[in-house]
């Protein structure tokens, strides 16, 4: 099982957006990230980056006085793939069939009412 800090990191939608941004446009500095997210303050971005860093989901590199952040997707993959793969293994068959059953029930009830 992944460490709890990984779940903590991904539980926040803003942190997920930061990870997406780093994946698409990284490495970036905290200021760059704050700029792209208008409504999120620089201190808030720093706080999110600290939590992501603690979970090893971002790597930090210093160049002079600048801190650059890059996504480390590996722990993320472990959580999502494991969780999602788990669904596909069993649930898909069970639940896709259920959906058809429920929709069929609905259709029959509707037809019965319209008689």
């Amino acid at each position, binding site marked *: 099982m992944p460490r*709890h800090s990984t779940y*903590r990191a*991904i539980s926040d939608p803003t942190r997920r957006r930061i990870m997406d941004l780093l994946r698409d446009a990284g490495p970036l500095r905290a200021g760059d990230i704050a700029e792209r997210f208008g409504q999120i303050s620089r201190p808030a971005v720093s706080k999110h980056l600290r939590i992501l860093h603690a979970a090893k989901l971002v790597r930090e590199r210093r160049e002079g006085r600048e801190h650059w952040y890059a996504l480390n997707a590996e722990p993320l993959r472990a959580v999502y793939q*494991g969780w999602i793969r788990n*669904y596909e293994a069993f*649930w898909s068959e069970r639940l896709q*069939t*259920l959906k058809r059953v429920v929709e069929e029930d609905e259709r029959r009830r509707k037809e019965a009412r319209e008689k």
Partner: protein
Amino acid sequence: MTREPVTNEPLVVRREIEIDAPLERVWPYIGTAAGYARWSCPPAAEHDVVLEPKVGGRFEDRMVVGGREYYSVGEVVAYEPLRRIAVAERSGATDPTGAQHASTFTITLTDLGGRTRVTVEHRGFESLPTARRRDAFNSFDRGWADAIEMLKALAEEGH
């Protein structure tokens, strides 16, 4: 002479986690549709939940995970605010003979004095054909294990 071991023990998923938040903060994630939807499946998914907050209330769970849609329906069979919810889910055929699968999950909160223990039990795997039973059990077991970690993260950070 050898005998195959016969297991009469029912397969029951049982997963627990302790959360650093009081009952009042955790309960909305258990007892409301919007709260429940936020942790009970991977966050990348579209997820819509119907949860009528009473015994006999309707339960529906629709999600898109890994690009595929999943759907279940059921009925709330226990609803005790700040304490417990149980949902009986109905499923369609899981094998070519059309065997029905009915399962029930129960989520119980225990007050640890400012902290909360969340216990999930999921039972009903016996209604599945034997060949599929263990796989299904493992799948639900792992799914709940991931989900309660997400619940803990959400409740502790007060989202």
